[in-house]
C-alpha cells in the first residue's frame, strides 16, 4: 500500500471532565480515502474524540490537525474553510427542528455558496434526499414528523450536502433496521469510490466494520490501544479486542462477511 496523505492527525490528546479523565496521551492518524472505524466500549470517549477533532470540545492538551491545519485555538472565521470540507452526522441526526428536511439540506449550501438560484438548490435537495434513501414525500416534512431512522438519513443527507472530502459519522447505523443499515453501508462505500471520501466512523455495528471499514482503531484505557485491519486486530492479544471480535456477535458478523466474499 502506498503511503497516502494524512487527513486527520491527533497527537497526545488529553480530555477530562472534572476529575474524570477520558483521554490521556491519545494518538491517531487517518489517511486520505480510507474508511476509518473507531470502536470501544461504552464510555471510552468515542464521541468525545470526534467532538475534539471537529472542534466542539476543547481538549486539555494535545495537537489536532485536519487537512494539515491545526484545529486547536483557531477562531471561528479561520476554521470556516476547513469546516466546509467536512460533513458531520451526529448521533440523533441533529436536524434543525424549525426547517423541513429539504431546507435542512440546503442550509450548509446556502451558508457557503450564497447566490445559488433556488431552482438548483431545490434540485440538489431532491437528489440528496433520494440518495440518502428517504421516501418521496420526506423532503417537505419537519424533523418531528420523521422516525428516528429517517432523521438519521436526513442527517446524512445534510452532512453530504457540500460533497465533503471528509465525513464524520457517529453511530450512523444505530437505530436503523438491518436493510437500511446495509443500504447505508453500501451508500458510504459507493460515495467513497465516487468522491474519494475519507470517513471517520464511530460504530458498534460489527457488520458495518466488516463490510466497509479499511482500518479500525480500538479505544480503551483512555487511548487508542490498536489500529489496523480487522485481521490484524484479530491477531493481537488484547482481552477486550478478542472479546469484541470473537464474541458470539463478532463471529456471526465474520461468518456473514466470509460468505459474502465467497459469493463474490
Amino acid at each position, binding site marked *: 500500500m502506498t503511503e497516502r496523505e494524512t487527513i486527520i492527525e491527533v497527537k497526545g490528546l488529553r480530555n477530562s471532565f472534572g476529575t474524570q479523565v477520558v483521554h490521556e496521551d491519545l494518538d491517531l492518524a487517518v489517511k486520505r480515502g480510507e474508511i476509518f472505524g473507531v470502536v470501544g466500549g461504552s464510555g471510552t470517549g468515542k464521541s468525545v474524540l470526534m467532538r475534539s477533532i471537529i472542534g466542539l470540545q476543547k481538549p486539555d492538551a494535545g495537537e489536532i490537525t485536519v487537512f494539515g491545519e491545526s484545529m486547536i485555538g483557531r477562531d471561528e472565521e479561520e476554521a470556516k474553510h476547513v469546516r466546509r470540507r467536512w460533513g458531520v452526522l451526529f448521533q440523533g441526526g441533529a436536524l434543525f427542528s*424549525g426547517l*423541513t428536511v429539504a431546507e435542512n439540506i440546503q442550509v450548509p449550501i446556502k451558508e457557503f*455558496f450564497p447566490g445559488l438560484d433556488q431552482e*438548483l438548490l431545490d434540485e440538489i435537495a431532491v437528489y440528496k434526499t*433520494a440518495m440518502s434513501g428517504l421516501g*418521496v414525500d420526506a423532503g417537505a416534512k419537519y424533523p418531528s414528523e420523521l422516525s428516528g431512522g429517517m432523521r438519521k438519513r436526513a442527517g446524512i443527507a445534510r452532512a453530504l450536502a457540500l*460533497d465533503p472530502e471528509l465525513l464524520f459519522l457517529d453511530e450512523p447505523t444505530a437505530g436503523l433496521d438491518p436493510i437500511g443499515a446495509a443500504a447505508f453501508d453500501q451508500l458510504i462505500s459507493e460515495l467513497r469510490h*465516487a*468522491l474519494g471520501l475519507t470517513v471517520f466512523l464511530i460504530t458498534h455495528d460489527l457488520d458495518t466494520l466488516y463490510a466497509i471499514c479499511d482500518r479500525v482503531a480500538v479505544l480503551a484505557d483512555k487511548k487508542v490501544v490498536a489500529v489496523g485491519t480487522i485481521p490484524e486486530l484479530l491477531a493481537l492479544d488484547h482481552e477486550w479486542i478478542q472479546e469484541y471480535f470473537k464474541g458470539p456477535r463478532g463471529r456471526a458478523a465474520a461468518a456473514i462477511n466470509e460468505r459474502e466474499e465467497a459469493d463474490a
Partner: protein
Amino acid sequence: MSVTTDLSSNVEGGKCVLRFSGSLTLLRVRRLSEELGEIEAENLVVDLSDVEKMDTVGAWLIHKLERDRGATIVGATEEQQLLIDHVTGADQPVKIKRDYVSPFQRVLGQIGASMMLAGRTMLGLLGFFGALLITIWNIIRRPRRFRLNAVTQQFEVVGVDALGIIGLMSFLVGIVIAEQGAVQLRQFGAEIYTINLIGRSALKELGVLMTAIMVAGRSGSAFAAQLGSMKLSEEIDAMRTIGVSPMEALIFPRVLATVLMMPLLGFYAAVLAIVGGGLFCWISLGIPPVTFIQRTREVVPMTDLWQTIIKAPVFGLIIAMAGCFQGLQVQGNAEEVGLRTTTAVVQGIFLVIVIDAFFAVFFTEIGWT
C-alpha cells in the same frame, strides 16, 4: 482552490461537443449552469475526459444534460460514471415543498384549530381534575401510598425557596401603593386613608394575586418543564410500566404542595406589603408605626384575611394543575417543552385572574366588602 472549470463548445460533424475541463464541483456550478443555459444547440455530446474533479452537483448537471437534452456522455472515468449513475438513480420525484394553502384558508384553519385546541384543553383540564380527584380518593383509602418525602420536597421548592423573591416583591409593591395612594389622597387632605388603602388592598387582593403570579412563573413553569422533559425521555412511560402511578408519584405531591403553600405565601406577601407601606408612611408621611398598626387593626376587617385564605388554595390548585397538565401534554421534541411551559404560565395566570373576578363578585354578594 484555483482550479476552474472551463466549458468549450464546438460543432463537430453535426454534433455539438461540450468539453468540460478542470473541476466540476459546487464551487463552479453557478457559472456553469448559466453558461449551459445559453447553449441552444441540439445533438449534444458531453466530453468529460479533461475533468479532474467532479462531485455530485457536477454529476447532477451532467445528468440533467443527458435527461433533458438527450446528450451523450463520453470520456467519463469509471468513478465519474459511477457518480453519474448514482445521481441518476436518485433522480426521483421527491416532494420538498409543503402544499400551498391560500392565506384566507390558512387564517380560517388557524382560527378553527385554536378553537378546537381551546375546547380540547378545557376538556383535558376537566379530565385531569377528575383523575386528580380519583388519585386523592385512592390515597385517602390507602394512606400508605402517600409520599411524604416527595411532598415535603415540593414544600421546600414551592414555598420556602420562594420566600425571598415574593417577600421582596410584595414589600416593594407595598411601598409603590402607599406612595401612589398618598399622592392622590393628599389632594383631599386625607393622607391618613393611605393606611386603609394599603391594609385592605394588600390583604384582600394584592398579596394573594401577586403571589399567584409569582408562583405561576416560578413553580407552574417548573412543573411543566420537569414533567415535559420526563415525558420526552419516556421516564413517565417507564414509571407506568413498572406500575407506579405518575399521578400519585409526580402530580399529587406538586398539587398538594402548591395548594398548601399558597395561603401561607399569600398571607406572608400581604404582611410584607403592609410592612413596606408602613415604612413609607413613617418616613414620608410621618405616621409612626404604632399609629399605623393601630389604625390598620381598626380599618381592616377579618373578612379580608378570610378572603385571602379561601382564594389562595384555589389559585394554587389552578396553577399546579395547569403546569402539570401542560407538562404531560408534551410530545415529540424539546421545542414542545418550551411551548408547553409558556402555555402553562399563561393559562395559570389567566385562569387565576378569571376566578379572582368571580370571587370578588361572590364576596361582595355575601357582604364581605
